[in-house]
């Protein structure tokens, strides 16, 4: 059976659920080989036993943390040359897509990004133009390299312990850009926006007060998003912006609070499984895509809902 490489993404040695999703997709195509490019493999390997992985390849080096994506693409290309996999699957984060892009150039292989599904014949499904169009594509040249959005599949549990191999990496000619300092992100205790299974977002209707939005998000264990109007006004950090020029999210539940739902915002959240909208304006376009809408003041509706859920 052919093998499929998946890249093990991690933040400070912690492996996100998205890696399990890659393994679940990969198993449809072949035996899953997980590639770790990090100096933290000792912490990472045990976390992989939860997933459907048959082999682990460790590329060790502090260069991966120091040199950003160029080093990872270089190592991964060497692993691809050795393993000749049927496909390479990577999580569709900004970093993952850049690694995939550089890998595609190195391997002279086709690249599909932001896929939401891939079948056993490597036919990838994408949702494009703000979720209005579904596209099926295949790679016509080289090793298929596909990045997959998180939250696209239920993670299948692993069975048995994968074999572990070390792979010696050359960093000759690696990208000269170096990370000189990192100020770790302040842990707000909330899940990462693109990974979260529930997202609660606030817009113009918050009038700058995100407290009820955050309180509702915390009751649901959700990430907090914001519309462009809210981030442009400086009410919430740009890194939380959902929409055409911000992040694209596809959670199980998306709650839009005080967001009118302009096409630019919908482009970033339209593929959410269930959409709830709260808005004072009954004509707001967000209601056209909402499964459940409340016409009302978010400052009344959200606190009541938060209280109701706490009691439940």
């Amino acid at each position, binding site marked *: 059976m052919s093998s499929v490489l998946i890249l093990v993404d991690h933040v400070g040695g912690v492996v996100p659920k998205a890696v399990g999703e890659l393994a679940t997709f990969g198993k449809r195509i072949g035996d899953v080989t997980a590639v770790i490019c990090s100096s933290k493999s000792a912490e990472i390997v045990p976390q992989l036993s939860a997933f459907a992985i048959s082999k682990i390849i460790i590329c060790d080096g502090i260069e991966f943390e120091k040199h950003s994506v*160029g080093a990872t693409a270089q190592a991964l290309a060497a692993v691809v040359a050795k393993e000749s996999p049927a496909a390479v699957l990577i999580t569709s984060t900004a970093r993952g897509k850049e690694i995939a892009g550089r890998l595609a150039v190195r391997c002279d292989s086709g690249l599909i990004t932001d896929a939401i599904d891939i079948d056993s014949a490597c036919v990838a499904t994408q949702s494009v133009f703000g979720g209005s169009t579904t596209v*099926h594509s295949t790679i016509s040249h080289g090793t298929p390299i596909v990045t997959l959005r998180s939250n696209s599949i239920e993670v299948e549990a692993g069975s048995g312990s994968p074999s572990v191999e070390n792979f010696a990496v050359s960093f000759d000619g690696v990208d000269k850009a170096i*990370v000189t300092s990192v100020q770790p992100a302040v842990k707000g205790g909330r899940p990462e926006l693109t990974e979260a299974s529930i997202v609660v977002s606030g817009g113009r209707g918050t009038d700058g007060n995100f407290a009820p939005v955050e309180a509702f998000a915390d009751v649901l264990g959700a990430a907090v998003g914001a519309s462009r109007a809210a981030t442009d006004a400086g009410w919430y950090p740009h890194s939380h912006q959902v929409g055409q020029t911000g992040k694209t999210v596809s959670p199980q539940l998306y709650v839009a609070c005080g967001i009118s739902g302009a096409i630019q915002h919908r482009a970033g959240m339209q593929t959410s499984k269930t959409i709830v909208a709260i808005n004072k304006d009954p004509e707001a376009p967000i209601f056209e895509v909402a499964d459940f809408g409340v016409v009302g003041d978010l400052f009344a509706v959200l606190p009541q809902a938060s209280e109701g859920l706490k009691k439940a």
Partner: protein
Amino acid sequence: MKIAVCVKQVPDSWAEKKMGSDGRLDRANVDAVLNDLDEYAVEEALKIVEAHSPTGEAGEGSGHTITVISMGPERASEAVRKALSMGADDAIVISDDALGGSDALATSLILAAEIKNGGYDIVVCGTESTDARMSVVPAMLAERLGYAQLTFAGSVKVDGTSITISRQTEFGVEEMSAPLPAIVSVVEKINEPRYPSFKGIMAAKKKTITTKSLADLGVSSQSSWSTVKDSALRPPRGAGVKVADEGDGGNKLVAFLQERRLA
């Protein structure tokens, strides 16, 4: 310093986009504009030059040049013109019938060939185009050219031989630096793109836009490394239930979430 800014002409981001029968974005029936996110790249290039110019201004007398590079149909020169009216010095539009349907691999191959021709010290890009939204061309350019990659910059500092950026990632706020030459992509919070002044618009009419074919560039490329099998409009999301808040909107919301097992 020689600075290049890569820009793309895209369908207006407010327009509804549709797939053509050839499996490509239908570009004929929508207004085409300069990609919003590329305006930040043009602005940042101008800022870099202004900081190093004896007159404090970009253009002649600054000792530095900003060249706008775009690949696309001939009408892409309209989008390029906007960048020139903001203050860039000249532009190159790579246009060839053989480039229709180019994917990111082809685009980066062609742009890299032109950047190599020009021998630029810094290449500035936006983070993504608002149509394809792959966000991979800057990284691909770095890989093809062997330039240092500093992407998603929230601030940029250049000191003549090296470049330093800061950026927000899932790891926190990172500072990165590299010797030139380098590829930089800039996020939209980095600056406030200037509106072209009347003087700038008039001056842009006299600036040179060079159109090049693939033969002029001396490269050839397949247009795509992937194939669209089929595409379909997603059935529109039917609007669901809409209730008015009569003092119980929050409770009704909770009931909905519980019924759907979402809470």
